[in-house]
């Protein structure tokens, strides 16, 4: 993947400088569409136009204001309880997908999805949909908060305790799974701790167990002796261990890298030097996620060729973004199964590392599967576009109404695609069908393009 303007990777100060303070910041359709794709699964034509009209700062403020919007909770709460009444969480995965499609706060769901991938917990092993739902709510609650309370709460989360066998962690027989992942996958990354640290931290979490589907601290099973790890020693418990782990210099760098990969680009080499300004911000703000994400989304590098068009949409991003762009709804139960075939069933990550993402989303089978999925969504009898047909949706769009085929394809591409459409590709789409008369064929063709797979 050509990342263009790679100089920014060697100039961290310039890269993380606020975009609006750079020489010629441009916040047009391309930039606004990029911001919505990365922060909120993608915007509608109206949302993108409004963003361009308001400018970057105001748009960012609006995005962060979504965090306070709880209107979707009222609509979805009862449904979540009902679909999580049994062990099987597949219906809950469908429920989450529906929430992503319908919510007025897609930014919240996008960041919740990030934390789900970070603290990957698989419903198959947990086998308790209610516990998965509670974890999902926990991730949403802490999505933009401080990282330390999030890690402490996830450490005592029932689904996580089951998934990493912490409920079996007793002073007589410490289980190291959670301690290992706490450092390797959640907070520090490999190479920043020793096997001895793992053993000692595992002792801190002894007695953290489950009783009647709730977290319970069993004092009898807890090791009350001194533990020595990461250069400190004392009679620490799990919460103390989390605080000590997060004091390590590697912690902010590790979280910064994960956030940068999620929001900026998959495949770039993230040197410590490049990441440091973001890591510093995390440290300065006591791991304030909201502030750090704001820094990333308003940075120079975020609107540079390093980032734009340099991520591959995950199956969830692909389908949710597609549906949201066309203000569409469909049978999400079926959609969930199809997304699973493409390699990303929410609540069912492949392992504790979560989804690898990036290029791994694409292979010979999934590239066809992706094109077929969007085509099938378009044709499915349950799919409605702003409560009407796709043709009616096209007619309702002031930007598209009455335009020539060429103009429609060009406009659609500018809002929908992460990279510019070549003239020859645009011509072949125009040649395939008149989008005003046969929007289904035109949209199917656009969604099957390699360009559409980019985020």
């Amino acid at each position, binding site marked *: 993947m050509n990342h263009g303007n790679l100089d920014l990777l060697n100039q961290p100060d310039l890269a993380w400088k606020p975009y609006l303070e750079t020489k010629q910041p441009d916040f047009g359709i391309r930039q606004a569409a990029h911001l919505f794709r990365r922060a909120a699964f993608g915007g509608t034509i109206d949302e993108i136009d409004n963003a361009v009209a308001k400018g970057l700062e105001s748009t960012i403020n609006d995005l962060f204001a979504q965090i306070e919007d709880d209107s979707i909770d009222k609509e979805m709460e009862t449904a979540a309880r009902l679909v999580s009444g049994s062990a099987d969480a597949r219906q809950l995965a469908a429920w989450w997908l529906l929430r992503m499609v319908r919510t007025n706060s897609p930014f919240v769901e996008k960041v919740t999805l990030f934390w789900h991938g970070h603290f990957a917990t698989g419903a198959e092993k947990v086998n308790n949909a209610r516990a998965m739902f509670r974890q999902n709510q926990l991730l949403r609650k802490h999505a933009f908060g401080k990282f330390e309370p999030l890690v402490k709460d996830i450490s005592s989360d029932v689904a996580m305790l089951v998934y990493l066998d912490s409920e079996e962690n007793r002073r007589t027989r410490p289980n190291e799974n959670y301690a290992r992942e706490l450092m390797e996958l959640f907070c520090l990354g490999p190479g920043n701790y020793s096997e001895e640290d793992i053993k000692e931290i595992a002792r801190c979490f002894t007695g953290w167990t489950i009783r009647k589907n709730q977290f319970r601290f069993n004092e009898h099973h807890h090791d009350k002796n001194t533990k020595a790890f990461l250069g400190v020693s004392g009679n620490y418990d799990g919460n103390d261990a989390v605080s000590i782990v997060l004091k390590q210099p590697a912690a902010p760098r590790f979280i910064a890298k994960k956030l940068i990969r999620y929001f900026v680009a998959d495949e770039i080499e993230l040197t410590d030097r490049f990441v440091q300004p973001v890591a510093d911000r995390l440290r300065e703000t006591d791991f304030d996620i909201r502030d750090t994400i704001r820094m990333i989304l308003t940075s120079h590098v975020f609107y540079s060729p390093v980032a734009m068009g340099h991520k591959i949409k995950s199956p969830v991003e692909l389908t949710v973004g597609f549906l949201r762009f066309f203000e569409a709804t469909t049978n999400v139960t079926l959609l969930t199964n199809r997304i699973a075939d493409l390699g990303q069933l929410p609540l069912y990550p492949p392992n504790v590392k979560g989804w690898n993402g990036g290029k791994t989303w694409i292979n010979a089978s999934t590239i066809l599967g992706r094109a077929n999925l969007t085509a099938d969504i378009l044709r499915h009898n*349950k799919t409605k576009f702003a409560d009407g047909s796709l043709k009616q949706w096209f007619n309702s769009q002031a930007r598209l109404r009455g335009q020539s085929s060429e103009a429609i394809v060009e406009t659609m591409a500018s809002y929908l695609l992460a990279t510019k459409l070549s003239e020859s590709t645009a011509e072949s789409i125009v040649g395939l069908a008149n989008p005003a008369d046969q929007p289904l064929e035109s949209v199917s063709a656009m969604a099957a393009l390699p360009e559409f797979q980019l985020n």
Partner: protein
Amino acid sequence: MSQYFRFKENSTPSHPLRPSRPRAGKTLLKFVALGIITTLLAQPALAQQNQQSDAADYFPDSTAIYVHVRKPGELVDRIENHSAVKRAMELPQAQEFFESPQFAMAQIAQKLLEGQLEEPILETIKENTAKGMWIGFDTETNGVMLVFRADDEDRLKRVAGQLLKFIGTAAQQQGNNVEIKKREYRDAVAAKVGDALIARYKDWFLVSNKPDFAKSFVDNLIDKTDDTLANQTWFQEQLTNRTNADVWATIDLETARSLSKNEELFSGKTNNPGAELILGGIFDLLKNSPSVTAELNLKQDIELTVRAPFDQDWMNESREYFYGDKISGRAPLSLLPKNTIANLTSYRDVGLWWLSKEELYAENVIAQLAQTDSQLSTIFSGMDFGQDVLGSLQPGVQIVVTENAYQGENVPDVKVPAFALVGKLKDPDKLQRKLKIAFQSVIGFANINLGMNGQPQLDVETEKIDGTKLTTASYFIEEGTEEGLLLFNFAPTIAFAGEDLVISSNRELAVELATLLKQQSGNPTEAANTKMMLDGKMLHQILQDNIESLIAQNMLEEGNDRDAASAEIQLLLSIVKLFRDAKAEYKVEPEQMKLDVQIRINE
């Protein structure tokens, strides 16, 4: 002169008509003889029918499906004035539809058509179908034809002309490439609309997707030939059963078999064990019976009767489990405890069914069933599932579904109705204890699984109520247990009362069924092989109890928001409320199989 533009096409009629289709050779001698007798007996009736001019007199002999709507006008009136339709029209959703732009468009189209016809459309339908309406399917052309006959030829002539004009104008306005070519075929006037043919001859009007089918009909009308459906033996045999039903239909199964691409349907077998258990005997019928007839009456209620000739010799021997010895199998008497939602009672010898699996299914299914047999035998403490468990039951099983009864605060969010299986033991003294132990083993397996998943476990209690021995496994719910769990719907119970056996999803239903069984004297049976009922009021109640769950499902499956989902579910409930109950009876008699379905609508 017709108002159509007339031009001469090939005026050579397509007759001499095709020779009679040779019949497949499987019809039994018995039916040939019966056919001859019926034909002789039916001649005066047919002559009379010729005077009444039934379309069967003109459908070609290759017609395999015949449907007759006796008085379409009356039927339309009845539907229009039906209390259920009137109430449906008053529903808020219907009112909303009447105010929608789609309805307004449809109204405009209707007004335009009525303007063209110079009369209300319902009036047109009633008047021009006064002598009946028919549908036929022809195997030679693969064509379908709608035929109706008016009692006023001049009126039909005017309406047909106007209708064609309207189609032409509408097609032109919408820019559709529907080509309309006017034709004259012998003395009939016709028009080809796209691939379809519309024709009128005197007071007859026909529409077919295959012009050749329509031509054959017209030829027969003009030439009065004998090579018609009415003269076919199979059809004449069916006429003996003909009633004055609102709709009467018959299908030539022999032809359907020879033309069908669905080999499994007519093979006499199915590889679906569930389908075999429920419908097994029907597969014998589909494989062998020459024909099937159906009659439908629409009054306050909807009544459908389907009949087909049946011969014991057609019975697959391994289906004795389905018919009983010499097709004498009768379903146990229906048990209807309070708040019954549905009941299915049937003569099935499930032990014999399981043991006959090797004759009934293909090898892959047999292998799967053998595996199931082995797994279930482990669960049932080493008892052979086929021989010892299913084989311990007398023929005749019943499934009863009722509203669930919840106790205390453990009410599930999703309310599953209670259900029970009722049967009779062959040797109660020997088997009651063994089955009770097997039941306890199953609960033991369930408890291991529940315990591993941190779920509440089942506590087994045994009691005796009025001579009935009950063993119930109910969930041990501690303080702090998750609320609203699905498993709160169940308290699995096994009950023994003499030879009666009840396996129920909850204790209350088991107790009630045992009481009802005790009130019976002997082993009363229904007159049918299989009988089912569904209660509309209780169905409505269970849907109402689960309304939140249905809304959630609707949101996930339709992608609706909560308000839209709620509106759709309310509509469903309103429709279910119109329906009082449904009953179906399946009877196997020495010479016929008969299915009666009755759907009662609330006044």
